[in-house]
């Protein structure tokens, strides 16, 4: 009898969460205090209500409610330098159970995020390797870079356009100037424009980004001047079309079918429009040279174009074509960085498997 009354009481009284504590969230800009607790032993608990009190006040304000599986709450409304303490109340449908409040905690701002330490070391190390080789390239003018297959086709393709008396189309991708592929593409455009200027082949460069358009225009103008044909540069070589992805694709498709360029260069960053452009170009019988670091679009360029610069080959191509020692040095540095990555993968795996070291913790 007594025991049944006792168990009834036990069932009726909800057990509160235990060990409520609060502390500053590390590695942030301040304003955050993390409250943690241990789970209430009752299965009827729906969740926990979290309340806060400042040192100078009597008032407890409710901050929020979290689910029964949560064991922490992030108070993101704390003012830096103010003392707060916290209370956590377990709630079921019918009852509540309160735990004693936590000690006082203060939020503060940090100057370094220790989670980014691996990134910092990695950045420093890789930057050092790259800069070292760029520097070496200044002294040693004969750094070796192997031939890149698609590039031999450039002269051949431009020659073909000249023979046929048809224009050359160059699309410098559909992304912004902040995209590295765009920068690489503009470098290649400079080399291509020098050749079209020399051969007297008309060049068409449609753009989908206003800033890229401005830069592309300057690049082409400079190439024509370098090639000794400043007179051949006209306003309508490089132009802007629209920043709408598929409207741009529609317009370039129109140019391809109406102007019938003999050679199409599709080089830079591309999205879903990649195959729309490449298939239309292939339908007009143009020789197509593509290059992108958009991994998801590469399969389509490979199937629909004559030559494709895959990923990093695009960056290497701009160095290879220009023969600029500083660019070549960069490629060298990238090669050694890749070797470093392979080394880390192999060594990390060996250490993890043979020595059982928790390698992933350090990365």
């Amino acid at each position, binding site marked *: 009898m007594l025991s049944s009354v006792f168990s009834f009481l036990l069932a009726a009284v909800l057990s509160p969460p235990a060990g409520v504590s609060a502390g500053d969230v590390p590695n942030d800009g301040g304003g955050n205090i993390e409250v943690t607790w241990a789970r209430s032993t009752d299965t009827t608990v*729906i*969740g926990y209500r979290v309340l806060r009190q400042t040192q100078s006040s009597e008032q407890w304000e409710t901050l929020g*409610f*979290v*689910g*029964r*599986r*949560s064991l922490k709450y992030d108070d993101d409304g704390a003012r830096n330098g103010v003392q707060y303490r916290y209370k956590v109340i377990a709630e079921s449908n019918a009852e509540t159970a309160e735990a004693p409040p936590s000690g006082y905690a203060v939020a503060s701002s940090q100057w370094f995020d220790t989670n980014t330490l691996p990134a910092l070391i990695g950045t420093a190390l890789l930057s050092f390797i790259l800069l070292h080789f760029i520097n070496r390239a200044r002294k040693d003018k004969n750094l070796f870079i192997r031939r890149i297959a698609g590039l031999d086709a450039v002269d051949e393709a431009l020659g073909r356009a000249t023979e046929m008396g048809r224009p050359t189309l160059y699309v410098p991708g559909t992304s912004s100037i902040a995209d590295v592929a765009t920068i690489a593409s503009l470098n290649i455009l400079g080399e291509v424009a020098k050749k079209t200027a020399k051969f007297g082949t008309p060049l068409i460069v449609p753009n989908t980004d206003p800033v890229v358009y401005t830069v592309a225009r300057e690049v082409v103008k400079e190439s024509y001047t370098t090639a000794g044909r400043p007179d051949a540069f006209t306003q309508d070589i490089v132009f802007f079309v629209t920043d709408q992805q598929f409207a741009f694709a529609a317009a370039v498709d129109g140019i391809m079918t109406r102007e019938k360029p003999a050679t199409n260069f599709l080089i830079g960053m591309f999205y879903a429009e990649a195959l729309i452009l490449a298939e239309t170009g292939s*339908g007009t019988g143009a020789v197509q040279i593509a290059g992108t670091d958009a991994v998801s679009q590469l399969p389509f360029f490979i199937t629909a174009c004559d030559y494709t610069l895959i990923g990093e080959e695009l960056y290497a191509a701009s160095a290879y074509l220009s023969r600029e020692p500083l660019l070549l040095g960069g490629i060298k540095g990238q090669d050694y960085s890749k070797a470093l990555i392979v080394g880390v993968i192999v060594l990390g795996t060996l250490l993890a498997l043979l020595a059982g070291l928790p390698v992933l913790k350090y990365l």
Partner: protein
Amino acid sequence: MMNFWTKLQALDRRWIYLVVWLVVMVPLIFPFKIRPVATPPVQSLFNYIDTMPENKALIISIDYAPASQAELQPMLIALLRHAFAVHRKVGVLSIEVQGLGIGEDALRQVAAEFNSHARTNADSVLNGRDYVYWGWTTPYITVMLGMGQRIARVFPVDYYGQKTESLPIMKHLKNYDDAGILVSVAASAYPLSWINLAQTQFGIHLGCGCTAVSAADYYPYVNSGQFSGMLSGMKGAAEYEELLERRMAQTGMDWGLRRKGTEAMSSQAAAHLAIIAFIIIGNIAFFITRRRKS
């Protein structure tokens, strides 16, 4: 003969376009039945909903905009039909504001299907008693967390402007504890938010319906059990429709309802087979002409 194969090699691409156009269009107008076989993620979601305790509701979250309707709408319809067919309560909400109209269309359509066959009051499907459409509110974090505590507080009035508290269905649908499963039908990354917020905090069971492109990203969560099942693309919807039709036939509900996923499946499959056939023909032509040359 040689001429034929050489010509075939350099076939005008417009013939290919024409074939693609026809093989997609003809089955849309005259659908032929193919019996899709359910893949494990589809089967497990179906089983989960089918065997849910009777007092538990199905919650569906519409997390997509009209642009993805072609792929996702058939899933929504099939899920609603399933819940009503096995007499489970349904709550529907929308995380994407453009999804509001989608939910209303779907509920109206499915309720009408059941009501046109209903013989008793218990057979019919009524708003406020058998289902509730809470509508949309923002931000999504508040919705996903708040519903774990009290749904009526997150949505004080439903889509039609009725006070949520006053609806009979809400007496037994207070929070996630009353829901057997929540299925997020989405074209974006919302299913992962449901895991991160609703599941890790309240432990609700989740299912997911997504486009074919994002399916690869969600497979790991099906393997880990965080999603109790998954429907991917039109194919997933078609498989679910197949399971559902058999299930409904068992209880005498063989009404011959439209199966948009399955209908598109015939176009889908026909187009795939056409492309596969093209590749085979192209290669045969390639080998024959090459052999002749050498």
